[in-house]
């Protein structure tokens, strides 16, 4: 996908279908789609600062045990030292995206990719078994 906010809905439709094709159940799908959508939105808003037409790659791999989704961009990398978790008791208006990505999956990790951009990896253990497979958008 590219970095237009209007692309997010199409990415979610694609990911939901791809996860469904790998027998990932509705609740798991919802969590994985939410986490992935938030990371893509962060690429749009923060890595690219709202610039349109920039590349964001979402890759999906599944095994019997887990689902792995990777999100890559070529924008300004996330600075973990500046991240402050939102105070959920204070009804925050901002900063919920990364919180959602963290709590929706079992493991979230960040690295800088070969393009100097963001490389996020999401892992979620599967509630039920399914066939191996992978897709990319």
């Amino acid at each position, binding site marked *: 996908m590219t970095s237009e906010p209007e692309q997010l*809905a199409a990415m979610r439709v694609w990911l939901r279908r791809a996860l469904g094709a790998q027998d990932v159940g509705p609740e798991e799908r919802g969590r994985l789609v939410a986490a992935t959508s938030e990371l893509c*939105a962060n690429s749009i808003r923060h890595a690219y600062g709202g610039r349109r037409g920039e590349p964001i790659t979402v890759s999906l791999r599944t095994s019997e045990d887990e689902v792995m989704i990777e999100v890559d961009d070529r924008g300004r990398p996330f600075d973990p030292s500046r991240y402050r978790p939102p105070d959920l008791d204070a009804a925050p208006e901002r900063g*919920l995206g990364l*919180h*959602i990505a963290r709590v929706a999956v079992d493991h979230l990790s960040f690295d800088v990719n070969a393009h100097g951009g963001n490389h996020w990896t999401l892992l979620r253990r599967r509630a039920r078994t399914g066939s191996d497979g992978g897709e990319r958008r």
Partner: protein
Amino acid sequence: MRIELTRTPGATVVAPEGDLDLAVADDVRSRLTGLIEAGEVRLVLDLAAVPYVDSSGLGVLVATMKRARAAGGDIKLCALQPDVRSLLEMTRLVKIIDVHPSRAEAVASWQ
């Protein structure tokens, strides 16, 4: 984003259609702010036709809640789809924003 407005004696019902995400958040925020500034501070947000809300959309809900409460009203949500409820639970907003199963119950709560 298409938003249907229905005025009842007790509240204004706002029913958006489609995902409430980064792409539409600013538009929805300004339309809800417009309602509050026009004195419509008792709001019901019917999310029956909203399959997904992202963090930008949740930010709109929180901002609207704060604005409405500051003006003496509030926002009540109803008819949440499963993914939307799950996001409200993950962010604990379900404890802060009033949620009702149906539009009728949300409107009745304003009577």
